[in-house]
């Protein structure tokens, strides 16, 4: 789908802005400069206003695209189920710290709460959710993604 196809789906109404941004994110993996300007033009808004809104949300990526995005839940519930150890395992697997984006291929993020606490700890890799993750399982899960690297 092209950006035009996405835009044409929506009327020019304020409540459609975030919807368009989300669709663009889903389709292209990020909402970059070019898209921001196209969206702004369509909604007759200033690009700054569109970027300002887009950059506010966790699920919108306005910075750079990563091949592997690992999100580990760090909510209090998952924390009591040793999510800190899982984070350490993921860090060890990729050899980089949580939050570091220098490698530009992989990013490890703390996530707030996915709302699946009874199945915790939760880890999400490239939008696939893994439940009841243990430190031992981390390697097996992540091995399935190393091709993306």
């Amino acid at each position, binding site marked *: 789908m092209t950006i035009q196809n996405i835009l044409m789906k929506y009327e020019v109404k*304020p*409540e*459609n*802005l*975030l*919807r368009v*941004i*989300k669709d663009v*994110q889903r389709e292209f993996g990020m909402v970059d400069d070019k898209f921001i300007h196209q969206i702004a033009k369509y*909604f007759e808004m200033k690009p700054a*206003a569109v970027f*300002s*809104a887009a950059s*506010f*949300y*966790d*699920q*919108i990526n306005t910075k750079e695209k990563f091949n592997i995005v690992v999100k580990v839940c*760090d*909510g*209090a*519930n998952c*924390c*009591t189920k040793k*999510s*800190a150890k899982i984070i350490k395992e993921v860090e060890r697997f990729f050899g980089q710290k949580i939050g570091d984006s220098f490698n530009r291929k992989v990013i490890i993020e*703390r996530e*707030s*709460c*996915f*709302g*699946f*606490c*009874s199945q*915790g700890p939760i880890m999400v890799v490239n939008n696939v959710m893994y439940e009841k993750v243990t430190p031992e399982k981390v390697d097996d899960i992540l091995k399935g993604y190393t091709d993306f690297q």
Partner: protein
Amino acid sequence: MEENQKILTKNWGKIDTKEITSYRKIGGYQVLQRVLQMKSQDVIAEVIKSGLKGRGGGGFPTGNKWEITAASAEKEKYFICNLDESEPGTYKDRLIAENDPHQLIEGIIIGAYAVGANKAYIYANGNFHLAHFLLERAIHQAYENNLLGKKVMGSDFDLELELFIGAGAYICGEETALINSLEGKRGEPRKRPPYTSEKGLFDKPTVVNNTETLSSIPWIMEHGGTKYSQIGGNGEVGTKIFCVDGIVKNPGAYEAPMGSSINDVVYKYAGGIIDGDEPWFAQVGGSAGVLIPFGSFGAVPAYPRSSYVPMGSGAILVVSKNQDIKELMLSWANFFHRESCGQCVPCREGTFRLKNIIERLNEGNFSQNDKEDFNNLIWTLDNTTLCALGKFSVIALKDVVRYGFCDELK
């Protein structure tokens, strides 16, 4: 009071959530038909009679909220169902949407009718993919069945309902931030007054209700406010879904009457404590919730913020004696630091510095200076932030200090 009265979860597992016919077969939308023949003020009066309070944690009486917006002379009004549920440890609203989407939609239609709104939104958390699918489908079927759209069920009432999916921001659960987000802006809280009942979505009078609140409405209208008000105890009425987690045998979501104590929920519903483990304390109401030491589990969660156990979102996390408290403190601090909207100085900078201090605490580099700063930050977050997030961010940390759970902070 009936122990096992189920209101919110009564249909869970019994209906096909993908088909409206399944919900209608068990009597769904019949009460709506009746409501649409009532005067809107009578609907509101019934809800006021029920004593139902906002289940998002605010605890504001739902009927009164509706009454204020209904009284506005403004023609255009909006009705919003808050399904942004992102308080850590809480997932009751997601379950409601996944297990009984039509009961929720029926509640929304009744609410919109009562306040005179012709446009309603469900603002859903961006992570709830199954709920999105089911709600989208349910809304579509409701339109097809003339439960939404022009002249709902042959009445003079028109209602459009749209699903709006958030993009990941805890603060959007706050109603003014949610409204900003819907309007395509940053999800930053607005200054109040003006209140949303006067100037909400697109500056029009707006009601924002929690999902659990709205799901209780069809039952109330079917059985009457009086009957609802007789459920519960200890000054609170109705039923409530508690999300119980931690060292309990059966973690999960349970509907219990209001007025149940922590012990009631943990032992009667969640199967008690895992063998061989011992609770240290429970956190009630999510990460913005208070800590209750094990010895006080007989206490009853209630809505007023001043109560000993404020209800909050109704999540109960039972924490083991073996838990490293510093790790948990870091989780809380990280959470609020990440979710601060960044608008005001104490919250943006304060939650960040607090996180750094707790990181040092975890690394064993906690200095005397850090301890002073810790107390100062707790105070400034508690007293000077723009919205309530600052206050929420230090509730648990204050309790850690109060109960002496962390040696370095004694």
